[in-house]
């Protein structure tokens, strides 16, 4: 981890500016917080002073009275109370401000990421994006709730304590102040090994946990191949490594904290040594010495906390940099300045000499010409890598065509707002994604305006209703993305029901290759026909049977359309399509 990096990265000034920008709207509240911190610190500094007054003014004089002592006691209590209230409010306000900032930042980041073009997600690791949303924003909030707070609180404590000491006796104060650089140096010296030890423990623990998780999942394999002893040995290696790191971490921890303790006591001894002589020479009263003994111990905690928060600052800056990098990314596909207002769309789709290439010299689609009348059912066939899936991405404008244009009812899709386009064109992916949520919400995609009845109606139309009712809690059954609660066929039904709810004029279906068991395949086919009714439908077929009844079949080969016609026409022609039909039956006919 480079979090503790010695030098702040070059763009750190920008990161700082970014952080300040988030804090700026709350500037008055920050000011109030500083005020509260001052009040709190003053009460803390005054408390030893009260005892000093008690000693010097009332205890060391002959014939003193009790009354002022009681008053002092009450004063002490009042100071404590005031300090506590100020501290409590200050901590809560800091937290509230920091949390408000992180909330806003998270929303901004999430919205921004969602607005980026699909290409971004194909080239960026989603795991890393997630880290930005959860961990980086948390670290940024720590800048406010920890670093800034510590800077204000601890910085002020040090200043006030120092001021109080100098005010009581500047010579002794200056001498006492020499412990500050010693504490700072000690803290700075210990920090890197402490951090390294901590880091090593964390990483070894996560390796151990990953090992256990994997071996619990694959326990069957270990047992069937009878390798329990080998895996236990591997476990022991990791287990011991973690244990050693953890003991080492604790050793550093004890070493650091006890050294700090020792230094604190030595500082008191030091003050006693110097101050004792001063009291004897009547240079200072006894009460002042008492106050010094209390004050000098007050240096330790704030300085320690400040150095600790230096690391927080470093990691916050790095996170801020990462987040601002993401926020600075522009979507590659932009909406036109004034998008066309879409009239009622009939669904006439034209591919007008469309070519496409991800890289300039490698065309994926070449000169595609297709005229699809409203309501037609078109099948696209072709081998893996022929460019079928790219066709879908162009239709939904996940990418822009390199040459030519795609028209819907005569309007270039680039003239439309992307969200408008995707309201009329629905793409059903090969992999049907399930959300953590009820079946109901999975079908209506959490849209609050879609009623339960509408969802049930859609499910009934596509034939999904039947299996949904058999689920333990019907439409309210909880689904999860990874949970295998639905079969491939059932997922396909859900996707069709989703489409009915979306009610697009144009449907693009990337047919699933995954082995739907053969019985449900027929039902899926029937559902597809139901969904395709009254819509322009483009089906990318991996299984030729799906498009056998299509109005037209276009056969793609190396990015170009090589054949076009109905199933029977194409079979009769004996070209590529006919060959593909033959091949799909080949493996079995060998022994039939």
């Amino acid at each position, binding site marked *: 981890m480079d979090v503790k990096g010695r030098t702040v990265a070059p763009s750190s000034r920008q990161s700082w500016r970014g952080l300040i920008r988030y804090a700026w709207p709350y500037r008055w509240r920050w000011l109030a917080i500083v005020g509260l911190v001052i009040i709190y610190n003053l009460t803390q500094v005054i408390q030893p002073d009260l005892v000093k007054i008690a000693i010097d003014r009332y205890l060391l004089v002959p014939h003193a009275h009790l009354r002022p002592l009681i008053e002092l006691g009450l004063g002490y209590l009042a100071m404590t109370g005031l300090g506590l209230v100020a501290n409590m409010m200050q901590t809560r306000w800091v937290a509230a401000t920091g949390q408000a900032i992180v909330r806003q930042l998270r929303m901004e980041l999430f919205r921004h990421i969602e607005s980026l073009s699909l290409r971004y997600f194909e080239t960026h690791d989603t795991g890393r994006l997630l880290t930005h949303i959860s961990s980086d924003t948390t670290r940024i909030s720590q800048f406010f709730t920890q670093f800034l707070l510590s800077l204000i609180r601890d910085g002020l404590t040090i200043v006030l304590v120092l001021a109080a000491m100098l005010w009581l006796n500047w010579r002794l104060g200056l001498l006492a102040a020499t412990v500050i650089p010693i504490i700072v140096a000690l803290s700075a010296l210990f920090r890197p090994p402490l951090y390294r030890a901590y880091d090593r423990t964390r990483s070894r623990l996560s390796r151990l946990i990953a090992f256990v998780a994997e071996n619990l999942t694959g326990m069957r394999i270990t047992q069937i191949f009878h390798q329990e002893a080998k895996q236990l040995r591997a476990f022991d290696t990791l287990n011991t490594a973690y244990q050693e790191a953890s003991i080492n971490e604790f050793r550093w921890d004890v070493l650091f904290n006890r050294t700090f303790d020792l230094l604190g006591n030595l500082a008191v001894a030091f003050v006693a040594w110097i101050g004792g002589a001063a009291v004897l020479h009547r240079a200072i009263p006894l009460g002042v010495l008492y106050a010094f003994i209390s004050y000098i111990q007050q240096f330790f905690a704030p300085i320690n906390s400040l150095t600790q928060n230096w690391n927080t600052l470093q990691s916050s800056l790095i996170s801020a940099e990462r987040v601002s990098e993401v926020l600075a990314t522009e979507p590659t596909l932009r909406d036109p300045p004034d998008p066309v207002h879409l009239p009622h769309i009939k669904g006439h789709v034209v591919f007008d000499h469309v070519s496409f290439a991800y890289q300039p010299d490698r065309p994926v689609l070449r000169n595609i010409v297709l005229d699809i009348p409203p309501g037609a059912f078109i099948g696209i066939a072709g081998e893996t890598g022929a460019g079928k899936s790219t066709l879908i991405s162009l239709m939904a404008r996940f990418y822009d065509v390199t040459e030519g244009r795609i028209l819907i009812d005569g309007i270039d899709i680039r003239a439309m707002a992307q969200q408008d386009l995707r309201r009329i064109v629905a793409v059903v992916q090969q992999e049907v994604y399930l959300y953590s949520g009820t079946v109901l919400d999975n079908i209506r995609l959490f849209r609050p305006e879609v009623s339960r009845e509408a969802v049930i109606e859609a499910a009934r139309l596509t034939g999904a209703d039947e299996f949904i009712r058999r689920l333990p809690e019907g439409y309210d059954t909880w689904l999860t993305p990874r949970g295998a609660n639905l079969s491939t066929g059932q997922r396909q039904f859900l996707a069709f029901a989703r489409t009915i709810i979306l009610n697009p004029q144009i449907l693009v279906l990337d047919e699933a290759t995954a082995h739907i068991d053969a019985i449900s395949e027929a039902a899926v086919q029937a559902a597809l026909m139901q969904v395709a009714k009254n819509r322009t439908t483009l089906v990318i077929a991996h299984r030729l049977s799906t498009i056998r009844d299509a109005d037209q079949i276009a056969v793609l080969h190396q990015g170009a359309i090589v054949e076009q016609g109905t199933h029977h026409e194409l079979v009769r022609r004996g070209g590529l399509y006919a060959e593909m039909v033959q091949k799909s039956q080949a493996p*079995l006919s060998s022994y039939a």
Partner: protein
Amino acid sequence: MARRLVWNFIREHGLTYLIVVVTIGLSKVIQVQIPNLIGAFVNSLEHHEMLSSVRFYAVRLALVSAAFVMLFGLGQYLVNRLARVFEGELRHRLFAHWETLEPHYFHRHTVGDLLSHVLNDIPQVRQAMGGGVSQVLQALFLFAATLYMAMRHVNLVLTVIALVPLLGIPLVVTNMGPKMRGQSRRVQESLSEMSDLAEESLASIRLIKSTANEDIESERFRGRVDATYHEAMQQVRLNTLFQSLIPLLTGISFAVTLSYGGDLALTHRISLGAFVAFTVYLSMLVRPLMQFGNVINIVQNSSASLIRIETLLNAQPAIQDPANPKPMPPKPSITFRHLTYRYPDGHGPVLDDIHLTIPFGSTVGIVGRTGSGKSTLVSLLLREMDPPPGTIFFDDVDIRDIHRRDLRAHISYVPQDGFLFSSSVGYNISFPRDTVDHWELVEAARQAEILSTIEGFPSQFETLVGERGINLSGGQRQRVAMARALIKTQAEIVIFDDSLSAVDSRTETAILRSLGELKRQGRTVIIISHRLSSLRYADRVAVLEEGRLTQYGAPKDLLREPGLYRHLYDMQTEGGPARGC
């Protein structure tokens, strides 16, 4: 059992624990001398003693604190070190125990649940044995010593009066500690719920974009973000309350001291030095009182954790190996004799009166729909579950009379999901054996049709497959898993559990051809599939329907009779059930 482990461990390390008690105890006794020294120091100043004797106090202060720090540090380190050693032993025991449990156990407990024991319960126990023990010792000695010093050297009544407000501290700690921990857990949960939603959202970004659902997702995300905000604020409220209550109680106690103690000093019932020392004692009492509260919380949590760990360690393997096992017969035929099997928690039978013989050296296919009982049959054959007595035989030996180690030495297996360990390709293939020559590795890879793929990788057999083989495609994973089964050359029976589903038909053909090699070597091959093309070289095919064996015979014969086999054949050669060949 787990509790006994704790006691055994303590007994085993008795000497070290004795040293811990002595060092921590001694350190605390020394620590309480510090305020007394300061008090004596103040008195010596008040009585204008010699400078050298005043300075002597400073030197004593330094020496005493050095002694305290070293003893305390040593004790603290030793006890926490032991706690970590115990933690390691406990983890080892748990993992070793899990290795003895059968798959059924892992079906009933999710990996996440089991992991949470490793992640939460075991550290909880460590905390009790490290921080808990250390805090108890500190608190006991410090509290007793401080009280003694305060009463003896200062004043009994003052001590009692000043102590009253402080007694609220352990109450506050035991009361608010669990609440704060609960709230901190809720904060973590709300954060992970937020991350989960973001993760799902990013994973389904294609769907979201293609349905123009961005705004809905943002709103859903806002709900989660707001929840984290409120939970975090609640946590801050609790924490600040706690952080204020303790100093408040201390402050009250201090104010009382100032007034009453001042009065005592005024009337010369205690010395000024004693008064100053007492203020220091008071601040020293705060920590042990908080520690008492902490320890109560720690003990409560860790005893709950210990009970959970105990439950885990007490889980008994459902399958026991026979006391006097019979050896696995060489080159056995496999016979199922009227095998009916139901799951302990299920209703109807999963397998219903299965009766068939697989002669040694033959290749047999098992076909059936999802849920027809194919996988159960395999699990029984691997004895991951216990069949009823007298139902599965290797020649004439009941599977229940064979030791599992012996049984599994003769069987190799390719799982459905192609599970791989996140190590290198070579490690995964050689997994079943302790030592493997490079040429054997190459040979196994060649047979599984994965050799050229591996040779195409930059680091060849050293290539890392990633977590659960994520760096490989589904088909590649299956083929590596297949090579892993094939490298176990001593196995006479090889089972393929639907393990060709993700390879394309050309590769499938090539693999089936190398399976022919196994047959020539005279090994029994069992292939489970719902793709008939995988079974084309089988001598015989068994058709399972809802747990019953409905057809068994050569593929050619099965094609001639009506039934599921022909039905599947029709569908898999042509598009729909309506059109035959």
